């Protein structure tokens, strides 16, 4: 059925965690290492979980795939493509070795996020190894399930701080029959933001948007007739697809020598950056800056409008990567962390101190 290795190392991982827990140690959970840059750096015993691989269940007609977390993302996407299916959240790989576990733990989604949903919206169930060395399962393999608190979706973006993700069930979607990219001119960020949000009030088959330096791109996805009709109505010029390059941060905009900052804002928020070069995507909800910035100033701007700022990549070590939480929320989140991992053995401090 597929070439994905079928190797179950749950027992080894469990005994490893139990022994670390017994000796008061700390571990860093490593999958493919492609997103290891993401989050605060930490020094702990690396535990490689990428060997825990294999498809547990995939029946395309059920629209659900269940797999071990060490599966390579690229191989899983290839398998889905064979069945004309895909992940709706268009996950970035950031490297050949990216794993499913890292994808879920990182919680990062691509250009389709604003239009199809994030990873959290598609995760249906998980099997995890917690800080007691217990293997627990939450959620399930069905699309509709409200039994118990939704712990499986809590894992998305938790960066390995709540436990080792062993298996995950994810809802998949059919691939689109047709995709088409259109280009439009908007000489200011505000014009783009207004335009893309106004388009959202109409049922167009939009699946991605971006704006850099006066040029807006729009991707349409759907049936051939639906896409064709929308393209006629919307105007613009046909353009080359660059969404993979955007997703993988391989566009010229992303200068590997510069710090990269991610700004999340309610999508219709007017431009807050003025002359600073920026890339706007997700209908306005995600805005990137590549270059030196004043993080505290950006953070106070973002807080004023209900957003947040991440020092995503290549920032100075003393800059907090994630947007700081209000004290009461940090306290609550620390208590949640402790409920899974009382001794704090998993990825200590990856997100915030104590988290």
């Amino acid at each position, binding site marked *: 059925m597929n070439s994905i290795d079928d190797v179950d190392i749950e027992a080894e991982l469990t005994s490893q965690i139990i022994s670390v827990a017994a000796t008061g140690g700390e571990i860093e959970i490593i999958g493919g290492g492609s997103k290891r840059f993401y989050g605060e750096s930490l020094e702990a015993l690396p535990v490689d979980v990428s060997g825990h691989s294999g498809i547990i269940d995939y029946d395309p*007609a059920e629209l659900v795939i269940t797999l071990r977390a060490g599966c390579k993302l690229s191989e899983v996407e290839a398998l889905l493509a064979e069945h004309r299916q895909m992940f709706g959240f268009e996950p970035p790989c950031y490297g050949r070795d990216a794993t499913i576990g890292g994808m879920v733990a990182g919680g990062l989604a691509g250009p389709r996020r604003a239009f199809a949903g994030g990873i959290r919206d598609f995760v249906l169930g998980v099997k995890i190894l917690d800080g007691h060395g217990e293997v627990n399962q939450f959620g399930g393999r069905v699309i*509709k399930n409200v039994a*118990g608190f*939704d712990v499986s979706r809590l894992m998305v973006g938790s960066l390995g701080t709540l436990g080792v993700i062993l298996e995950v069930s994810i809802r998949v979607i059919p691939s689109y029959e047709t995709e088409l990219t259109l280009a439009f001119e908007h000489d200011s960020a505000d014009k783009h933001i207004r335009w893309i949000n106004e388009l959202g009030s109409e049922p167009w088959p939009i699946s991605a948007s971006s704006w850099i330096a006066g040029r807006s791109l729009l991707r349409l996805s759907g049936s051939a007739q639906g896409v064709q009709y929308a393209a006629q109505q919307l105007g613009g010029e046909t353009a080359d697809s660059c969404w993979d390059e955007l997703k993988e941060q391989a566009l010229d905009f992303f200068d590997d020598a510069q710090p990269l900052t991610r700004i999340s804002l309610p999508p219709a928020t007017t431009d807050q950056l003025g002359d600073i070069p920026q890339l706007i995507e997700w209908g306005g909800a995600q805005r990137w800056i590549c270059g030196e910035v004043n993080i505290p100033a950006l953070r106070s701007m973002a807080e004023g409008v209900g957003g947040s700022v991440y020092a995503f990549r290549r920032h100075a070590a003393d800059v907090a990567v994630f947007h700081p939480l209000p004290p009461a929320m940090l306290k609550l989140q620390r208590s949640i962390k402790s409920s899974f991992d009382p001794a704090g053995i998993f990825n200590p401090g990856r997100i915030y101190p104590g988290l």
Partner: protein
Amino acid sequence: MSQTRREQLAAKFREFLAPENVVDQPTSLNAYESDGLSAYRQQPLLVLLPEDIEQVQQVMRVCHEQRLPVVSRGAGTSLSGGALPHAEGVVLSLAKMNRILKVDHLSRLAVVEAGVRNLAISEAVQSLGLYYAPDPSSQIACSIGGNVAENAGGVHCLKYGLTLHNILALKLVSSEGEIFEIDQRSLQADGYDLLPLLVGSEGMLGIVVEVTVKLLPIPRCARVVMGVFDSVEKAGDSVASIIAEGIIPAGIEMMDNPAIRAAEDFVHADYPVEAEAILICELDGTEEEVSSQIELVEKVLKKGGATETRLARDEAERLLFWSGRKAAFPAVGRISPDYYCIDGTIPRKALSAVLTGVRELSEEYGLRVANVFHAGDGNLHPLILYDANNEGELEKTEELGSKILQLCIHHGGTITGEHGVGVEKLGEMCVQFSETEREQFHAIRECFDPLKLLNPGKAIPTLARCAEFNAMHVHDGKLQFPELDRF
């Protein structure tokens, strides 16, 4: 609980709530004794109806100080007893907090108080060409706060998602009376993503007071096709074939013969009463998309063995096709003194096996069962027909319901797709989750509500409760379905 205690507390709450917003007379309290699951009844100590967030906070501070259990309640339409009162606690009704605070057309969102009715949101934004997608069958009455607490679904979930997928921000009051907010309008969660924990938490983690919902553009076109089948298996396989074509229907519903007959008797929608199953499949989108896909669906249905397909010619006929399905519950209510609605979810491929199992159980218990099925997402609603006036029949019905849910787990499914655990499915939670998994749920609850005042006794069973349930359900020293794969 003594009458004096009730009077003392009522006086305390009247210090900041209008006198009529503190319900303490037994005759008035009766109205709150149960929710949509009327088999369970309990009179609360008091019912409180705060009118704003500040009053909710004051209520919670008093309850916290007095260690009073708090059951929050929206419209009281829960089908699992989620809003069943606590004998020694208060019911906190959000019914008076029913204002739509803001509609932002450009951002396609609405900020509403928890007591706003689900349908009222769509009605308020209809003139903008927008709507709120989740449509539980009680949408005319149920409140958005209750929808959040239960992660309510509806017939359009497969395409448009559950409540969780249509919420952008929540404002809650904690068990200590503090406000806490989850704001994901920016499509980002800082730190842990608590929204999925809170949505569907059945009022146990906080009191939802304000909800920011996502609004979607109303589809330009919706069309319906009905497929008639001589076996449920063929109907089920046809659903898989439609999905295999890459089509995600806006809604796809199945009814079995008893459900078809009951509905037809009631609404006269010209349903084929001899059929073993019908599928009602709705597609929506632009004119162009829908017309190309509806033809394909019709072909797939025929190829899948439909003895007949019917394409609704106009809007009136589309609504007629739906009328029978939408009236399925009351229709069953007409042919039986009482009915009990079950809410399991199964992988679709297990449909035939599960329905066979349900039929066998139905015969074993001597109780009729009609099945309606949200076929796209695997959510099965067997309706057990019974008569509560017959001694012991309710108990028998509950036992049959429990067996059906365990059958769903056995086939890789879950005990509740959209109605919640409430008080109703506590026993089955012991089957679906292991002891350490249930402990994790309790631990999460204590992070939010250390004193366990919010909706105590619901959703997550205690160890003792599970010990009791398992003792009752071990036969001949064996658990039912010992080979159970719980995932």
